[in-house]
């Protein structure tokens, strides 16, 4: 009967099992667990939604415009709801909600290679051959996800992409990757669910020898992943992935046409547009059931050619609608103060416009956006110089660790948290970054 200890089972299965076995002591343990858990939830129900712009977005055309200079490009800024903060004219919906967002305009991050930049921005650490640093979603999963025992689905979900690794925090904190349609491949059918308890019992018998023979940490990690998979596949919370599904016990409704249109538009934005909006809507549902970190991917930013037309006609309308919808929706549901929003890619793009009317990779001076989460929003922090080619002399430059430290602050994760690598090396949270003081008030 040690089934759930080893592989985890959801409440229904547990109760069915209990009814059959009439064992009372574990059941009592279980109930006290649920109560304890309710208390933790009250304490911390913070979440983070990361919008990841794969390819490296030209922030000089979106968040930090330089009209009238040689590097300024074709777009003009418009004023936003936040006094004194201007953004691209092709971001009107986002401009309306800018009281709840902020720009960090002086990111200076040195990694201008896709792989290295992706790693650096996600983890706060530059790549190092002797250690795999956890992506920040894994850190949040480790810090907050573990404490949310009512959460039966993975505590770090990546929609429509996903590359990060959990590194030394262990495979159970790796991103759970789903497509933008939210479909879970190989979800169990009824027969598989029925057979599961017997099969898991058999599995325990079969593999205990191998796990106990001394072969390192991988076998144990593999077992933990199975536990998470079993939790997931027997959970009602799966409904969060499907925007058409309702489950009143979880506070989830089938999304209305109006909501879907707000996020996804009428389809005119093309599949990519729909996919991004749909992913954000799914992210909101995942946050509703308690997932502390959701990454949503929007690609297509590697604009070495034809940057302005592509932004104007494709990327920005998609992005703008998505951000506007998410902020409005979270606000209406009273979730915005508990949900931090982060927007970044692996780097920005060159202020210089190349011969193909494109912009190349640029990490020396660019922007990130952060919002919600009870932060002091509606500001632009930091600045670049006149033509955007470097961080302004009087401005502090920021690293990804500072962004993640700000996120940690907003989520109630102590900034002095230290993790230990497999080699026993202490690793400071967010690589020792500091929360941006203008944002934390």
């Amino acid at each position, binding site marked *: 009967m040690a089934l759930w200890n080893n592989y985890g089972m959801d409440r229904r299965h547990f109760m069915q099992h209990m009814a059959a076995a009439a064992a009372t002591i574990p059941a009592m343990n279980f109930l006290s667990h649920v109560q304890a858990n309710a208390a933790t939830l009250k304490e911390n129900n913070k979440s983070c939604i990361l919008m990841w712009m*794969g*390819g490296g977005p030209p922030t000089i055309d979106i968040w930090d415009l330089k009209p009238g200079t040689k590097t300024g490009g074709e777009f003009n800024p418009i004023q936003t709801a936040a006094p004194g903060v201007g953004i691209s004219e092709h971001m009107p919906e986002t401009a309306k909600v800018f009281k709840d967002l902020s720009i960090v305009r002086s990111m200076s991050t040195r990694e*201008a290679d896709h*792989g290295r930049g992706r790693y650096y921005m996600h983890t706060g650490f530059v790549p190092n051959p002797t250690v795999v640093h956890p992506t920040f979603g894994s850190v949040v999963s480790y810090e907050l996800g573990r404490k949310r025992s009512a959460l039966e689905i993975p505590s770090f979900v990546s929609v429509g992409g*996903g590359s990060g690794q959990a590194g030394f925090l262990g*495979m159970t904190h790796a991103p759970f*990757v789903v497509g933008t349609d939210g479909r879970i491949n190989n979800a169990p059918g009824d027969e598989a669910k029925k057979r599961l308890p017997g099969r898991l019992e058999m*599995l325990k018998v079969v593999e205990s020898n191998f796990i106990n023979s001394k*072969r390192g940490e991988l076998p144990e990690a593999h077992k933990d992943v199975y536990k998470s998979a079993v939790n997931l596949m027997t959970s009602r919370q799966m409904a969060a992935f499907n925007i058409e599904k309702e489950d009143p016990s979880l506070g989830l409704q089938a999304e209305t046409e109006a909501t879907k249109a707000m996020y996804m538009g009428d389809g005119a934005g093309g599949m990519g547009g729909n996919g991004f909006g749909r992913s954000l809507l799914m992210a909101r549902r995942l946050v509703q059931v308690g997932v502390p970190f959701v990454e949503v991917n929007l690609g297509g930013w590697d604009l070495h050619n034809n940057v302005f037309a592509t932004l104007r006609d494709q990327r920005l309308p998609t992005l703008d609608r998505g951000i506007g919808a998410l902020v409005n929706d979270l606000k209406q549901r009273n979730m915005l103060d508990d949900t931090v929003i982060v927007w970044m890619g692996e780097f920005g793009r060159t202020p210089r416009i190349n011969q193909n009317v494109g912009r190349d990779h640029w990490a020396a001076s660019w922007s990130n956006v952060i919002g919600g989460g009870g932060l002091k929003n509606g500001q632009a922090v930091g600045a670049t110089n006149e033509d955007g080619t470097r961080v302004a002399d009087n401005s502090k430059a920021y690293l990804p660790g500072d962004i993640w430290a700000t996120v940690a602050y907003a989520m109630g994760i102590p900034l002095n948290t230290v993790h230990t690598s497999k080699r026993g090396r202490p690793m400071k949270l967010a690589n020792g970054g500091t929360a941006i003081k203008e944002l934390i008030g």
Partner: protein
Amino acid sequence: MKNLPRRIERMAPFAVAALIFCLTPQLSAQDDAEAEEVDESKLSPVAYINHKVQQGYEENEITPSPMADDEEWLRRVYLDIVGRIPTLEESKNYLKDESPRKRFSLVSDLLESSDYIRNLTTVWSNNCVGRGTPRGNNAAFSRRGMEKFFREAFAKNRPWNDVVVDLVASEGHWEENGAVNFALAQMQMDDDAVQLTAKTTRLFLGMQVQCTQCHDHPFNKWEQSQFWEFNSFFRQVRNRNVQRTNPTTGRREQDYRELYLVDFEGPVFYEKRSGLMQVAFPKYEGKAIAPDSFDRRKEFARLLVSADNGETPLIAKAFVNRTWGQFFGHGFTRPVDDMGPHNSASHPELLDRLSEEFVKTGYNVKELYRWIAVSEPYARSSKFGADNEIDNPGAGEMPLFSHMYLKSMQAEQLYDSLIVATNAQKSGRGGWDAQEAQRRRWMQQFVVAFDNDENDEATTFNGTIPQALMMMNSELINKAVSAERGSFLNDTLSARGSETEKLNDLYLAALTRRPSRNEARAAQTVMKAYRGNKVAAYQDLFWALLNSNEFIFNH
């Protein structure tokens, strides 16, 4: 410092200084003694591997794990050479063979099998073009063409240097000359062959120069100019999408893609961080070629394989390091494709010597495979003890190869192993292409492409929840445990023989070993709870075997 035990090198500098002071005399005495014992230059490649790795144990004061038993080694060598576990029959035959040379013969047999060709084709197609299969009217490359090229290369055991020359310098139709697909896959963006330059040096030379595109290398003396000198070899390359009219629909559609050359004689211009413009001419390892060469890539390929400076060509070293990494899960450098002065190798002399020997055999891939597969370190158990637990490259330590490291099966290995373990290959589905197509379709659920100019991708496969869900619930697994006619389970259950024999066969088919007495007893106890529903009991047992740690890991 070079001859110090590695453990000492890891100590704080003052401690090292103190140790050198008191240890120096003993150390040099010991060195002399060893030099008398073994004349390293006379050792065969395999003996040299054994000797050098052994030396590493001594220097680090560790005791290696004992040799793996037949079962453990058998499963491993199948996975590493032919990309799948052995069939029930193959295991039985090998385990009952009592010849003292049976390991050696098995390696030779495996190297001559068609599955060896298939495995290396998969590995190298993935290395060159990734796991994706482009479709539609603007497909960037042909996976089929790439696979065809490697299939022929490995079937004929073509010298690796010839293969590299073809991959680097081919032109023409993507299926008639499949080698072009390597370049085509790196040319999906109009980027002045930057990606092609970076990938070529990384994959075939084991050098990561991509960051020197914009600045000098942060950790060694490679300069930005070098990247653009490499790059200028590739600036004559273009590709075009050739279309034709579909006679039925009347629509234009893709016929094929081809790689061709254009005249380009000039230097390459690039920008220093200071904004200063610079020029670069085609140059490799200090050797320049005439800028007006008819095909610069051919010149480049010639330089890659030439050894006139007395050093082993990097293409040999890169291949040896990568291949060693495939067998052990860790190469001599981490990562295997980032060699250079900034990243020292765990066994530099061994890497050098193996590369030299590899060149001496005429870049004979099968020989290299054979040396590693029959070596001592490869035959050690994956179990380790207190005496060698510091040998843990998973935690970032330099590998000492004192025990086998667990490797997660590649997705293709897992798929092929499932097919083998469940007899699905006996139902005789189509030929090579049909089987490849089926496996490719299955693969796509695990591939995530990044949307950028490096055309890189990740798999959501290894050790993740999606993998676990696949192993627990997929069509493939349902079929494997279905016990329908013609399936392995059906054959086994309906054959004559005792329950013990059936249990043995299930274990052998999935895990390449028989259960211990305790395991058999435990399994039978659980099976009793099925109250006579024998089929269900065996099905669930087989399900559990396939989902077990021991199945999923190559150990």
